[in-house]
């Protein structure tokens, strides 16, 4: 009686399978890496946004005595005590034309916090008339 001959995979077949699996997993890995980068970028964005919101909360305390760092005709750069960030102060106007801070004082002023490419602008009662 003739025995049926058993035939294994050839090395070429095994290599092709291995290469296909490797390529697929490498593609997936690349995509997962992309998602992780996105996650890192989102975290960074949220951390900076949180820091700016924290700074804005601290600035809401009107009793803070600011130190004037720089004063121009348009705006004033202030630094809160014992802090390493600065805040830019502009006059606020509901009209399209804004009056520069050296020409007038508005009861509400525009505060601007900046960190890297992120900017937080909010309106609060003016801190002084800067005479």
């Amino acid at each position, binding site marked *: 009686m003739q025995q049926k001959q058993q035939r294994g995979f050839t090395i070429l077949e095994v290599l092709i399978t291995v290469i296909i699996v490797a390529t697929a*997993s490498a593609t997936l890995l690349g995509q997962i890496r992309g998602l992780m980068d996105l*996650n890192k970028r989102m975290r960074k964005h949220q951390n900076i946004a949180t820091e700016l919101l924290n700074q804005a*909360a601290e600035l809401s305390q009107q009793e803070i005595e600011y130190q004037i760092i720089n004063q121009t005709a348009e705006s004033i750069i202030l630094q809160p005590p014992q802090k390493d960030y600065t805040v830019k102060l502009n006059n606020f106007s509901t009209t399209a034309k804004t009056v520069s801070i050296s020409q007038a004082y508005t009861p509400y002023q525009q505060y601007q916090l900046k960190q890297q490419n992120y900017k937080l602008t909010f309106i609060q009662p003016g801190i002084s008339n800067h005479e």
Partner: protein
Amino acid sequence: MNKPQAGFTLLEMVVVIALSAIIIIYLAQLQRMTGRTSVALKTIDNDWNAQQFIRKQLWHSQQIPLNTEPPFIGDEIKFEFITRYSAKQGNYGPYVLASYQYDEQQQQLKYQEKQVANYWLEKSITIQYQTQELTAIKQVDNLQIKYQDKEQNWTTQWNKKEAPKLVQITYTKGGQNQQFIIETQVLSFSMHSGYSQASPSASL
């Protein structure tokens, strides 16, 4: 007559084992990264939303005009206050007593709200309903809450007639320190629709 069976050569076996090992390492890395990414992506939005929700609630925290009970009670790991920003009813809903508590064992910041009766402004707080305990932020370590008074001093206990000026929440998550400083009562000037107060013009 039996035909001799041919096996793999040593070289073939070495090549296949080496390639398989590389693939196994790849797949293990893939699985680890997928797990980490999915957890990170799931929690990042939850955390951010929870943080902004706490901010909004504290912005809407309410000063009591007539009631003698303190509107804001807090210590190192928990605080509760009256606010108009509700998880169940949203903004401009009825007043709720919002409670945040850090569960050290489960490493979670828990939240629960209780609706108070409309007349709480003048009388003692009566609970109308209370929600289930919700998890605000998960996987939190070393959570600590501090309160700033008018003189800008930080304290870990609060039980006064007025709300603190600032609330600071600090915790560690995934090895990263997180800190939130939130001002209170920024948007607490308006009355909700359920509270009727005769205006001077109406009484004339």
